[in-house]
């Protein structure tokens, strides 16, 4: 009998070059375009560099208040108004129940598109923003696009869970959730994953979590405690407080996994 051909899985390559002060073009990854979505929590310290790297900046409702109020103290600028005029989002989207009227007026007068979706109470503000990006991006463009999201973690736990679920609902897009302390990505089970570590800005603490469904077999390289066809499940073993031990971490699993890595003090 003929042997069954073993299907080789496509490799998905990840890197956090967007955390560097200047974007560089690492040889192993194709050029990326970045979109930035700002949710309504304290801005991370490194927001200015994310803003500069992104071609499209969307504030989800009260995220606009955060840019308006907090950007100045994250820059080295002296001139408050200059900072305010420099960081203008292309779009403000959401149900508009958190954005302050004067903030909305200011950005509107500066050319931001105000996309009022208050009639739609079915989805969260992040969902609306990601949907918009998803709709307006071709399949080809999606492979080169990475959406960076700030303010999705912490705060109310049900919001955090809904935001994490966005990674699963839009698993054909690269979306990274960022906080001051760490970043999170989804590693879909459909691919093998090569995660290049930018050790000047991230690590060493990392983890892999079978959120949503258990894993019967996960294999990694490049970690201090690698997994070898390991089972992972909430209520049993999950990989927390692991350590990156190489420039590249590889992950292959039969389940969708969340990857997290700590961020170094970036200012």
């Amino acid at each position: 009998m003929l042997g069954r051909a073993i299907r080789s899985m496509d490799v998905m390559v990840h890197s956090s070059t967007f955390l560097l002060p200047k974007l560089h073009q690492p040889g192993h990854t194709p050029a990326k375009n970045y979109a930035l979505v700002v949710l309504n929590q304290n801005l991370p310290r490194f927001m200015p560099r994310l803003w500069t790297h992104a071609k499209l900046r969307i504030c989800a409702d009260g995220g606009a208040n955060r840019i308006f109020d907090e950007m100045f103290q994250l820059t080295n600028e002296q001139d408050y108004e200059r900072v305010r005029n420099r960081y203008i989002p292309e779009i403000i989207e959401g149900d508009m129940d958190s954005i302050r009227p004067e903030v909305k007026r200011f950005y509107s007068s500066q050319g931001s598109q105000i996309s009022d979706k208050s009639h739609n109470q079915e989805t969260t503000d992040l969902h609306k923003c990601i949907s918009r990006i998803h709709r307006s991006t071709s399949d080809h463009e999606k492979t080169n696009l990475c959406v960076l999201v700030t303010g999705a973690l912490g705060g109310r736990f049900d919001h955090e869970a809904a935001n994490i679920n966005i990674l699963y609902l839009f698993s054909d897009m690269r979306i990274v959730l960022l906080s001051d302390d760490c970043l999170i990505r989804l590693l879909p089970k459909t691919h093998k994953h090569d995660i290049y570590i930018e050790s000047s800005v991230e690590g060493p603490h990392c983890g892999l979590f079978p959120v949503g469904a258990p894993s019967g077999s996960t294999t990694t390289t490049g970690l201090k405690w690698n997994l070898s066809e390991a089972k992972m499940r909430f209520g049993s073993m999950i990989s927390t407080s692991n350590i990156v031990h190489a420039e590249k971490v590889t992950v292959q699993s039969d389940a969708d996994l969340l990857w997290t890595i700590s961020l170094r003090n970036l200012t």
Partner: protein
Amino acid sequence: MAPTPPVRPVMSHSSAFLLPSPPSSSAAPDGDGDAYALLVLNQRLPRFAPLLWDRARVRVCADGGANRLFDDMPELLPGQDPDEVRRRYKPDVIKGDLDSIRPEVKEYYSNMGTQIVDESHDQDTTDLHKCITFVTEKLAIPNRSNLCILVLGALGGRFDHEMGNINVLHLFPTNRIILLSDDCLIFLLPRTHTHNIHIESIEGPHCGLIPIGAPSTTTTTTGLRWNLGKPPTSSIQYQQQLVLNLQILSPDDTSMSFGGLISTSNIVEEESVTINSDSDLIWTISLRHHS
């Protein structure tokens, strides 16, 4: 006659410990009321930390949680002398791998009689896991079935820590463990039980049910604005079913999963919420901010 489905035990939940005036059951020291243990992990103390401290019978700091206690408790009680506050809010035990606690903080509490337990040799379990094991195995708390473990500082911060802490809830499903932050609380609803959650005035209205570890095929709720599962044909019939703890199976029961529906931004609408599920769920509810 068809065999009766197995009866599900009922687990009742209440956040009365967050109320300003103490729950009446805690008045008797060896009474039937809940006994609280308070665990403090390494994040900023929430505003209600002094209240929970006073309610608890035993207080344990996990490593850097001792720094937070030392630094933040005086700030939460601004009208009082900081030294006096630190003396009064002294943990019974500080436990963990002790790589975050500041030397002067360790010395301060050690001199005051706090037991310092160095577990740096054990790298297999998280600080929270070590504290839970300690509280459930070693502490002399009468009537352990009433023990409720309140944890501060387990949410937010590094995501792998948060996931590890949520995994601890799944590893100890028969213990009552509640993770609290300024914004919300979460606890596990094990699939083995029918759950009755009494909603207090200091919590809500925002709530959610999250199937973190595995999808749920069959979840039924009452008391929420958007309930899961088949709506009752009559309220009385449904209540009777719950009282008899019959497993409610219906083709309309809503399944939940990551990548699909999960219940977030829900709203509590009644004083009591009931939940039945075929999967372990995380329940979360927002905490009201005092004026």
